[in-house]
């Protein structure tokens, strides 16, 4: 059986990748993909911990909730990106700068 630490390493890697994506991408949709990686790294942690411990399926249940909320979050985020696109004709975050003084 694969040891727990490999799951944790992969999830840490995914988390870092997500944060890196969020910080470097200027396209709003790409930033959202980074966010998805962060959420899924947490999911992987939760499921792995739950599988390798004797605490029942609490962690797996939490992961299911996270997946559902993530879907809702993406729906809202894409709707907002769409309305912004209608106003700005771009989804580049550097162009959304009216609020900066």
């Amino acid at each position: 059986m694969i040891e727990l630490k490999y799951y944790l390493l992969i999830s840490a890697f995914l988390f870092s990748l997500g944060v890196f994506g969020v910080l470097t991408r200027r396209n709003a949709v790409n930033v959202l993909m980074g966010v998805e990686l962060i959420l899924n790294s947490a999911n992987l942690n939760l499921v792995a911990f739950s599988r390798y411990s004797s605490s029942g399926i609490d962690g797996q249940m939490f992961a299911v909730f996270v997946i559902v909320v993530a879907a809702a979050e993406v729906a809202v985020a894409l709707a907002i990106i769409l309305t912004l696109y209608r106003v700005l004709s771009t989804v580049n975050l550097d162009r959304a700068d009216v609020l900066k003084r």
Partner: protein
Amino acid sequence: MNLGNLDSLTFFYPELILLGGILLVVISDISLKGLRDRVNPLLTLAALLLALFYTLQTDHGSAMTLFEGMLALDNFALFFKAFMLVAGVLVLLGSLHSEELAAVHQGEFHALLLAVTLGMLLMANSAHLVMLYLSLELVSLTSYIMVGYLRSDRLSNEASMKYILFGAVSTGAMLYGFSLLYGMTGSLDLFAIRDALLAQEVVGFNQVTLMLVVVLTTAGFGFKTAAVPFHFWCPDVYTGAPTPVTAFLSVAPKAAGFAILVRFFLGGLSQPAGEQWGFISGIDWPLVLIVVSVLTMSLGNIAALTQNNLKRMLAYSSIAHAGYILMGAVLLTGTGLKAMLVYLFVYLFMNLGAFFVVTVIFNSEKTFELQDYNGMFRRSPFLAVAMSIFLLSLIGIPPFAGFLGKLYIFGAVIDQGLYWFAVVGALNAAVAAFYYMRIMKHMILENDDRPPTPLQISPLNRALLVLLLVPNILLIVFWSPIDRWTANSITLFGGL
């Protein structure tokens, strides 16, 4: 005492009423074409008031948990539930005669307001990591939509975009922290987490992991409370959002963030010992939060000094106030917690008041710029005096309510012997006085050459201004009931 699912329903009326209210508003919005603009606000108001009534009626005896340990019902939660509902009522009334929102159809706005209030009620009593996450996301998702409510407005859209990207990342980080905490303790229930942490030695690698958990979860709560360094969204979002929404965001979700922060750190990561809490040995999380608090109030106040847009200035001021409120939470004492509650309570009325004056002035002037406030005293003495009272209250000048909050917070800090912390707070209050006074100077002393035309204020707005002024002036008279109420409200489930 732990209640099962069916027994819990008796104590769940406020949430159920809000849920019914959301459904009714949505139904009336699609079925009553002609009447809906009148029916929806009334339905929303009725739901909020009924929920408030049941919240104040709740007599739960001692602290207990509902729904198999998902929610904790205690006096602390009841205080915040009443707080959220009052904030909801005041914001609803403030949004009725707002020119910004009048341009778009408001049906969804009322449903969203009820949904965000429902989320905040759940936030105030969640005692389980799943519940904590779900309620936080319910509040976040609905407030993203409320910020971007003016669909054709570029500022509103931009604000909403920044809000959701920031929010998604910080709640994601918080979630990663939760997953590590679950791995360490094997449980998602806050009180079981505490027991598991107390049972094991937190040393070496565990210490590092727990510190990481503290930092990551602080990102989530810091985002909700707009604490430095998670405040970057705050000025932009507050400037871009419709003013009634800004007023709401600066008070209610912020307070909910503090409720959840106290619930997590005091309920999950510290143990009650006599009159105060001790943090679980190995992680000095109060120190982390003290640093955050000092940075938050200093940065908020200093950045507010140079702002010329009223909404942006009040946004920075609300960041600074989050710093003061955090001072009460990190002390780990009953007096500190009580001071935090008093401060939040008075902050509700003074901050909503200040934002409401901004809304009223925008209605006729279409501007948020400070220089356009010149000569406001000659045009509407009532409005200028009202704004001055809200601002003096925000500074903490004695006859007004804000003084009570500052008094309790600094008293609690000095009580713990943290003199330098109190000095930093006092210096900050002095800096804050400068920019609040600057607004008053523009409104009262500076006049432009134009002949003063009287400012139109609708009767409803005038009544609401009086309603917000009364607590600011009179709370000081009702000092002892507030003292008793908040002292009673610090009982946490599994705490003191």
